[in-house]
């Protein structure tokens, strides 16, 4: 459930970033499409990175084991 919520957060942040880029750096349809591509790519990369680490920790096969004498 936490996975879906955070994914939704990433989507929202991505949309907001797209809108901000569109508003702040409006330089014609060709450049805007370029900026949109960059923002979407960055959002997907960041989401993918987060999702991989989150999924790996959802149902771990091993647990943290402290060193002796700690």
């Amino acid at each position, binding site marked *: 459930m936490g996975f879906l919520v955070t994914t939704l957060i990433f989507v929202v942040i991505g949309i907001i970033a797209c809108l901000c880029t569109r508003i702040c750096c409006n330089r014609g349809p060709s450049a805007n499409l*370029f900026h949109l591509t960059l923002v979407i790519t960055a959002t997907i990369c960041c989401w993918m990175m987060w999702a991989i680490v989150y999924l*790996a920790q959802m149902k771990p096969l091993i*647990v943290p*084991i*402290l060193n002796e*004498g700690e």
Partner: protein
Amino acid sequence: MVNEGRFLPTMDLLRSEPMQLVQLIIPIESAHRSISYLGDLGLIQFKDLNADKSPFQRTYASQIKRCGEMARRLRLFKEQMTKAGVSPSTWSTRDNHFDLEHLEVKLEELEAELLEINANNEKLQHTYNELLEYKLVLEKVGEFFSSAKNKAVAQQKELEFQTTVEGSIDSPLLLEQEETTTKQIKLRFISGLVHREKSIPFERIIFRATRGNVFLKQAVIQHPVLDPLSGEKVHKNVFVVFYSGERVKSKILKICDAFGANRYPFSDDLSKQFQTIREVSGRLSELKTTIDAGLIHRSTLLQTIGYHYEQWSLQLKKEKSIYHTLNMLSINVTKKCLLAEGWCPVFATSQIHKVLERATMDCSSQVGAIFQVLETKESPPTYFSTNKFTSSFQEIVDAYGIAKYQEANPGVYTIVTFPFLFAVMFGDWGHGICLLLAALYLIIREKKFASQKLGDIMEMAFGGRYIIMLMALFSIYTGLIYNEFFSVPFELFGPSAYGCRDSSCRDASTTGFIKVRSTYPFGVDPKWHGTRSELPFLNSLKMKMSILLGVSQMNLGIIMSYFNAKYFENNINIWYQFVPQIIFLNSLFGYLSLLIIIKWSTGSQADLYHVMIYMFLSPTDDLGENQLFVGQKLLQLVLLLLALVAVPWMLVPKPFLLKKQHQERHQGQSYDLLYGTDDPLESESQSIPHDEFDFSEVFVHQLIHTIEFVLGAVSNTASYLRLWALSLAHSELSSVFYDKVLLLAWGYNSTIVLIVGIFVFICATVGVLLLMESLSAFLHALRLHWVEYQNKFYEGDGYKFFPFSFTLLTDEDEL
């Protein structure tokens, strides 16, 4: 021309700018100015229409020779200014702009004046040096004679005393004395200076040549003397040689010449000696004044030249490049027009029109230049219009190969994926912040550094400042994901998901913690740090992450090849290249990625290693405990079959279809010939140049390509594991520096040890992690983009648009 924008909206940087081959017909009178204005514009790449001619056969060879002569003069000025310690003025006055003739005349005049001043100064200096030596000779030899005279007087008194005492033998002594006096009157002498290192052989040879019938005396001069001939400072001795007879004199003169000894006249009359010294001293001071005035004059002249030097150099470079460009143009038979051909971006058409019109008006030319677009089958050069942000990323791609004209540019996604993959390897938000500060420093000082001459390394760092900034930002992000701040974890996004089994925590070091809360919401759980199971967990996590990221990027590459095939309307590449490649990659490695995700989601204990191996070795056997989902066996069978089918699908059809295509084209040509038998001219014009189709060559090429892709899919996937390896290395090194340096120093409870520890920690962090590790991660990210990603779709066999531009000229050219 390819249909642009028909299927997809245009996007900056994805395709190179549309280019056109243009032809200019320029009247001779406005040609120079037209080319000059086009050089300022910097948007035309001229073709060399006189490639078959030698440099001396070209139209403007004489002008280029003149430019060469002027460049020689400027180099002479530069050399003279360097010697005189005058530096060219950086603020150059641009008010007066000379044309080439005026500049040539002025440089000629200045050169003549400078050479004259130099010659005069040299002559005066020579005379000055000679007089200086003469003065030294006068002083030293004067000392000789004074001391000799004193000795003679003493000796004479002694002789008189003896005569008085021994009166009985007066007659014989008086006679001998008279004879001695007679001999002394006949002696002569030569005086001058000789090099100190030559003085001993000089003395020896004179003694031998005259059989010992000379008297030679030398004195050392304490300070080095400026040699009149060589102009260098030399250690010398003053010498005086006493001799009798003309034959001995000629011998001595020859020996003096052989040893380079300078001779100066000397009078034995005391009053004349003093007079000569006064005269020489007077002339010396007079010459000194004259020499100083000459030097001031020379310095003034050089400073005047220095004010204009940069401007003149720049203008001369421009003129030279203009004439080189004019030499590329073809002059027509009537010698009234120049014909030019070149490539320019389509968007530059109106700008070029304006420039040519302006040149026509400025020259008051009656006929304007003609500008027209030519149709051609040649492949245009590749031109991406970038800004200061995107240019460095484009250079990363261009270093691998220049894109073919209008080929999909990997630079678009590289802007994000390159710093992202770097950050996956470098992830630590403490180090990311350090990198960000360095990048921001370079960006804030942008204007200052842009106008400076930086060192090699600094130049590269400055050129890549935006890459460094993005790498830093992504590193901060992945550092938060890895939960490392100089290798120290924090609970930034909530408490750890792991806790003790009971309140006593006795099992923490044996059985370990248990998961008592929901998953840590962002990044790696901080409890893993420092535990025995940290490495197994992180290794497993990062290896799987590498596979997932790698397969994603490779799929993106193959999808790019689809866009290329679509754009160039190459259906063969879509159906017999793109489709089987996607099927093959995702049947095997896409499936592996899916298994990874399923394993994580379900917490299964299946061994993916064995699943993949036995998918090939025994696909029909039961999976047993390695089953992750229902129907897995059937799916694996289907995927295996798909992969097996994809390989011949990639290999076989394309060569045959290309052959068929070629045959159809050939047949069409035959039909044209048949129709055109009535009109031989029309028939000739329709003939297309025959291109040989070698089926075996095409087939072998396709075979190599298929093998490369299939094997590449395996090796490239394994190659992405470097993301894990680099990340692990960075993390472990960071931990070692923190634990073994900082914490160890802290444990000593000594301020001095702590300061030393902090210092060592800072040096290790900056030297090893920020410099060496970041360079290493950079290179590996570069490799992943060049080979693993671009290999999937990028041909990179184009050539770069290199326009005639004064801006490029200023940076690159040297006089």
